[in-house]
């Protein structure tokens, strides 16, 4: 298996190589940088495919792992390593595919940008970090790369750093996810202290042996989950993701839709042994996921920025995956992650193509673009249908399986939430599609200048569209050679069967959502303005994202900054004040004692004699025998 060592390492190492080479050598040569970056990720992709084939041949349970030391301190052994199992290979394929397509797309999208090479170096660094998470076989490595993808996210959101909004958004993204990472790190500390190891397999073995008390396990699971909450932008740490849309659109597609934000879900899947051992933690995950799903979907209804609609849609879908994980739908969650990666990347890239054409993000200024950019429009439509869950596109299969899982788990409340989310998803996606691509152009100027994007951009769109259609077939329930029999948790695959009732009802929900959108935005039978006015405060609430940002800002301004100012004041005036008080007392005492030096010879003499006699008196009291004048004799 020696070759697996090399191959496993090469997957993340190749993009790192690209990053280093671009930074050091080819920064000036734009096309060379792009080619270098893409060829490296392509090589990683090929290796990933090879590994996937190997895994498919070997079947479930075949996992390969090796480590090398990074930091050894007595009992505390931190290693870096790779772990190749079905979960790894699935995720590898997703990441490398999307990353590669996004990079190809970026050649067109970023054309003319002054920092073209820098963009590709960042993307390569991101690919390296993300692949590092995927292949990690221990918590420390996962945390390391977890932070590194956060860094890449920071760098890429702030790619146009001279825009104040971008700078602000990048900072916000980093800090908000840091809150989650805080919990993640504490969880790692506790877990490593209890188990004495960072390795996934060894931790799993200890859990299986029941060495960790359930209460503690719940605490650990929730702490680890907080890392996922930050990275996957679950409520209440979701606020950074919409702002992250300030970054270039390919970045949004790659990082903030397909891969990095899914890392939270991936982490839950990777550590599923820990989570599944704690029913309480699972319940929290399920309900938080469900809440985020519907919460974000309601916000997405009213947004007018094309990327923000998609951002909230991403939030909602990530909530869906979390919900699936929480009710034990390990495979369906991962399957949805996979399908979502493709169609959401497609949606973002399509949106990028539109933005590239009309130079605005506001869908109120678009309209009728289908004629000008048919490829973008059609691929966008495919993705929209897929995310809405229309048969036989990939979204249908994955979403359906989640619904089946929820129903089987018996959480009917969550089932209704999920169904409602599906309805809302279908509605807002078609609201978006219809407002952008159909109807009359609302901004004639922008429409005039709109044009179909170059091939470098449309080819990735087409590939992703194909993927959005076909990926679903890998996961048709009940099939022998399906996703479900390849990737599952535990000893046996989850029993899957096609539930016609669920399928029909979810299809009906999706269709009705689309129909409502058509009624409102295509046929004009229901005036959007009327709905807006009728819902009144609800519309405002949704439009302003439930004022969560404002609430946070309020607490930061009136809580954190007040504390910080108080600390600053305390340090200046109390601690330093005490120091200066000592200094002042010395000076004050000096200024008073100075008066004893009054120039009067007799007062000096008084002090000298007084002191002498005092000392003699003390001495006499202390040792009366000293008073004997002839003591020696």
């Amino acid at each position, binding site marked *: 298996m020696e070759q697996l060592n090399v191959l496993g390492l090469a997957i993340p190492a190749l993009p790192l190589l690209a990053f280093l080479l671009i930074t050091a050598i080819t920064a000036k040569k734009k096309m060379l940088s792009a080619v270098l970056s893409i060829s490296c990720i392509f090589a990683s992709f090929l290796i990933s495919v090879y590994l996937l084939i190997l895994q498919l041949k070997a079947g479930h349970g075949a996992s390969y792992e090796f480590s090398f030391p990074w930091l050894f301190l007595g009992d505390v052994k931190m290693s870096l390593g790779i772990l190749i199992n079905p979960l790894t290979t699935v995720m590898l394929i997703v990441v490398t595919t999307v990353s590669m397509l996004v990079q190809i797309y970026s050649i067109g999208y970023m054309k003319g940008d002054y920092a073209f090479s820098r963009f590709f170096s960042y993307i390569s660094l991101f690919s390296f970090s993300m692949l590092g998470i995927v292949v990690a076989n221990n918590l420390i490595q996962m945390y390391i790369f977890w932070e590194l993808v956060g860094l890449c996210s920071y760098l890429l959101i702030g790619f146009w750093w001279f825009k104040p909004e971008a700078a602000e958004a990048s900072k916000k993204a980093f800090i908000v996810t840091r809150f989650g990472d805080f919990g993640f790190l504490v969880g790692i500390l506790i877990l490593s202290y209890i188990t004495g190891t960072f390795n996934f397999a060894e931790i799993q073995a200890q859990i299986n042996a029941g060495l960790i008390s359930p209460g503690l396990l719940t605490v650990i699971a929730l702490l680890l989950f907080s890392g996922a909450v930050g990275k996957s932008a679950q409520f209440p740490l979701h606020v950074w993701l919409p702002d992250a849309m300030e970054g270039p659109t390919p970045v949004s597609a790659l990082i903030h839709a397909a891969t990095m934000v899914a890392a939270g879900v991936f982490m839950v899947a990777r550590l599923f042994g820990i989570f599944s051992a704690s029913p309480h933690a699972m319940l929290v995950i399920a309900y938080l996921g469900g809440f985020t799903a519907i919460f974000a979907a309601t916000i997405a209804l009213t947004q007018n920025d094309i990327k923000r609609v998609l951002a909230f849609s991403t939030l909602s879908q990530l909530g869906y995956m979390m919900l699936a994980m929480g009710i034990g739908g390990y495979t369906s969650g991962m399957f949805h992650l996979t399908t979502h990666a493709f169609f959401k990347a497609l949606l973002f890239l399509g949106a990028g193509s539109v933005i590239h054409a009309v130079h605005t993000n506001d869908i109120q200024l678009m309209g009728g673009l289908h004629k000008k950019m048919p490829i973008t429009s059609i691929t966008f439509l495919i993705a929209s249908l897929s995310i809405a869950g229309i048969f036989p596109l990939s979204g249908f299969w994955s979403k359906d399986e989640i619904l089946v899982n929820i129903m089987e788990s018996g959480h009917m409340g969550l089932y209704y939430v999920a169904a409602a989310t599906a309805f809302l998803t279908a509605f807002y996606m078609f609201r978006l599609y219809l407002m952008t691509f159909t109807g009359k152009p609302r901004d004639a100027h922008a429409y005039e200048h709109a044009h179909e994007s170059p091939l470098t951009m449309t080819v990735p769109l087409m590939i992703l569209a194909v993927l959005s259609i076909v990926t679903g077939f890998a996961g048709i329930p009940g099939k022998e050679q399906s996703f479900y029999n390849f990737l599952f948790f535990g000893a046996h695959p989850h029993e899957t069967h096609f539930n016609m009732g669920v399928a029909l009802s979810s299809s009906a929900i999706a269709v009705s959502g689309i129909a409502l959108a058509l009624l409102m935005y295509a046929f004009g039978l229901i005036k959007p303005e009327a709905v807006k006015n009728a819902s009144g405060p609800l519309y405002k609430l949704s439009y302003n994202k439930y004022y969560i940002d404002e609430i946070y800002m309020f607490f930061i301004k009136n809580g954190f900054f007040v504390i910080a100012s108080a600390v600053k004041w305390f340090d200046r005036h109390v601690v330093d004040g005490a120091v200066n008080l000592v200094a002042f007392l010395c000076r004050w005492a000096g200024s008073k004692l100075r008066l004893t030096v009054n120039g009067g010879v*007799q*007062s000096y003499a*008084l002090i000298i*004699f*007084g002191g002498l*006699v005092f000392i*003699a*008196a003390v001495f*006499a009291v202390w040792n*009366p025998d000293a*008073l*004997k*004048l*002839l003591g020696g*004799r």
Partner: protein
Amino acid sequence: MVETILFYGFAALILISALLMIIAPNIYHSALFLALCLFGVAGIYVVLNSYFLAGIQVLVYIGAVVVLALFVINLTRRILDVDSDQHNEQLLPAVIISGLTAFLIISAVLKTNWGTMIAHRVAQDNTALTGRLLLNEFVLPFEIVSVLLLAALIGAISIVAGDKGAQK
């Protein structure tokens, strides 16, 4: 017995005149009481059989130092000063400190076991011995003191005269 009477007599003279000296409102009177006090000390030397020392005491102290002091008093005294307060405000702490000093010494005296050291006095005149010692064993300190006196003499003149020169 004679010795006892003499001792107490001279002691009383010393202490009373010393006290009067320090409380006298007139500095001129003070100087005269000092002379009286120093005379009492000379008397004590006599009681201790040191006749030569008593002579020196009278000659040098009363004859020279006190007279010199009187001269200086005369030179520096102004009519206005006669009735001005001759004491500063440190009287109370001074009395306390000196009282404590005296108390400490006296309590030391009382604590000391004097034993047989009380009365081994040899009654004899030592003048000749003093002279011999001064010119033999103590010749070096003797000479140094002479030089010191000379230096003091020159110094005193230069201090007083140099100041005059500076004024001109």
